[in-house]
């Protein structure tokens, strides 16, 4: 990862590093792989919600690709990776607007251009707030969510990324190991989800109404694409391939994920009687989350252990929301917070030493030192994100109201927020008729008079007839929940 996890030997020779076309090419591909994780997450989440709000779920992730990208260029990269100020925040004038960076200027101590590093890290900044959205399915205003993203990345993500990965960041200097984002991404997002839930509250009908996933194939597609993209996320986080550490991270990513899927499925079979599709997808994601901080410091066998432990613990943790009565709709807390904590802490047991850093875990004769450091990282990021996210959500709620109205929630956020229906099953089409086209208005010379005549009509009229369809298709009722 960024500067500080370099071993001494590497950083001493840092001045002599030249631009490596191989590493640069690899990092451009890794960046594109991490980009695809956000649409993948959208599908993973989108399949899990009900038909009436799937578009909103997809959009809650997609909008991050727009918002965070612009913020990152303007000031985000500077806050996260600019020159350190007080170990708490970065700031470099050259990074504002990414305007003072030379074409072949190398990222400090690495063989890739700053531009490549900035693009790679941008994809992490996009994904992290998108992860939070799973906790808020079916019930928040889209504009409120957009405002929350802007505030959250500015006050939470950019600083925390600096703490963990920025040269001079205090968790980094402390020696907390987070290869690719167990604390900065997953604990951060999971704790934020919990904080926001205190403000937003439960869906109408939580623990009473049926809320089955509307499309498990979509969930599997999303999980598969996440798995694929995660190779860029983890292996790319070494920013090059000169010493084999990136390859170890790549392999461990695969190993832990496979093991975690098995762990979740085994738990589920014993506890609930079936190997479910959703369990396989969830177990894989739990494994990806848990190995994220650890993939550069453990062995393949250690990865199997971390994967199985994460798979089982996360499968148990998703039941907590029913017990403690918080509506973490798609289990952001149960998978990302718990998985992130598990992976970050297990480094303290399974770190072999001699790969990413020399620090050894308890099982390799390193004592409790690294576990202590990992605990500090986990607790600090968790508490900071939890508290600040709660405050930010409260601010958004006071400014514009975080939730949609009860009527809009019952009808589905897709219509209220996006004026669209996800699936047109043909047949009667819900009584839809075209009341206005998108042709340019008078004066454009398009000659489409029918469109001009219809200007006075209101477009939403065509939406009214479709609500019955959006609400149908779930003939079951919640009978028992795992507490």
């Amino acid at each position: 990862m960024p500067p500080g996890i370099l071993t001494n030997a590497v950083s001493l020779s840092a001045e002599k590093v030249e631009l490596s076309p191989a590493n640069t090419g690899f990092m451009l591909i890794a960046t594109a792989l991490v980009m695809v994780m956000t649409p993948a997450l959208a599908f993973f989440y989108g399949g899990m919600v009900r038909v009436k709000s799937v578009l909103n779920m997809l959009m809650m992730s997609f909008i991050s690709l727009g918002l965070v990208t612009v913020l990152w260029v303007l000031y985000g990269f500077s806050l996260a990776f600019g020159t350190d100020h007080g170990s708490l925040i970065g700031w470099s004038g050259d990074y504002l607007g990414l305007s003072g960076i030379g074409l072949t200027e190398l990222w400090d101590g690495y063989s890739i251009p700053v531009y490549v590093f900035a693009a790679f890290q941008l994809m992490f900044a996009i994904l992290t707030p998108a992860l939070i959205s799973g906790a808020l399915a079916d019930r928040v205003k889209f504009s409120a969510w957009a405002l929350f993203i802007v505030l959250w990345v500015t006050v939470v993500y950019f600083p925390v990324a600096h703490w963990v990965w920025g040269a001079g960041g205090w968790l980094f200097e402390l020696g907390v190991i987070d290869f690719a984002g167990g604390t900065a991404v997953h604990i951060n997002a999971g704790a934020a989800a919990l904080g926001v839930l205190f403000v937003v509250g439960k869906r109408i009908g939580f623990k009473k109404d049926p809320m089955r996933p509307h499309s498990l194939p979509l969930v599997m597609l999303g999980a598969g694409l996440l798995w694929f993209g995660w190779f860029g996320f983890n292996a790319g986080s070494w920013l090059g391939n000169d010493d084999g550490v990136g390859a170890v991270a790549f392999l461990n990513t695969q190993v832990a994920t496979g093991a975690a899927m098995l762990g979740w499925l085994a738990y589920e079979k014993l506890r609930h009687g079936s190997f479910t599709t959703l369990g396989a997808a969830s177990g894989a994601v739990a494994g990806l989350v848990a190995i994220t901080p650890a993939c550069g410091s453990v062995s393949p066998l250690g990865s199997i252990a971390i994967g199985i432990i994460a798979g089982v613990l996360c499968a148990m943790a998703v039941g907590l929301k029913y017990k403690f009565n918080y509506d973490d709709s798609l289990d952001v807390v149960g998978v990302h917070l718990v998985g992130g904590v598990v992976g970050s802490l297990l480094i303290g047991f399974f770190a072999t030493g001699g790969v990413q850093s020399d620090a050894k875990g308890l099982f390799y004769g390193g004592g409790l030192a690294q576990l202590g450091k990992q605990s500090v990282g986990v607790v600090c990021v968790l508490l900071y994100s939890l508290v600040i996210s709660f405050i930010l959500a409260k601010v958004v709620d006071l400014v514009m109201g975080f939730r949609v109205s009860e009527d809009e929630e019952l009808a589905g956020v897709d219509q209220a927020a996006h004026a669209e229906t996800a699936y047109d099953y043909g047949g009667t089409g819900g009584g839809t008729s075209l009341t206005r086209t998108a042709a340019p208005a008078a004066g454009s010379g398009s000659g489409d008079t029918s469109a001009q005549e219809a200007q006075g009509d209101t477009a939403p009229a065509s939406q009214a007839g479709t609500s019955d369809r959006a609400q149908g298709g779930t003939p079951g009722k919640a009978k028992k929940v795992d507490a």
Partner: protein
Amino acid sequence: MKLITAVIKPHRLDEVKEALQAFGVHGLTVTEASGYGRQRGHTEVYRGAEYTVDLVPKIRIEVLVEDADAEQLVEVVVKAARTGKIGDGKVWSVPVDEAVRVRTGERGPDAL
């Protein structure tokens, strides 16, 4: 005239359709339906949350026939739809006052 309505297991649709064609029925309407009788539903599990799904997918077939054919046609449908296991469905008939073929305006049995 009578309206014969049958609610059957989806996988018996082909057998029932062929039996009706063999009997000489010229047209029918099929709808995807859901419901339950004595069969009741099944259980599904999503991340530990168990759902009882009461409504089972069914096929609803509607056929208009002349009075004289009604009784026999009910038997044809029942025979074709039966698997002997729970959830085979139901068949019933009700009297129909009027029927009109939209294209020609023919009425009554001529419209069938």
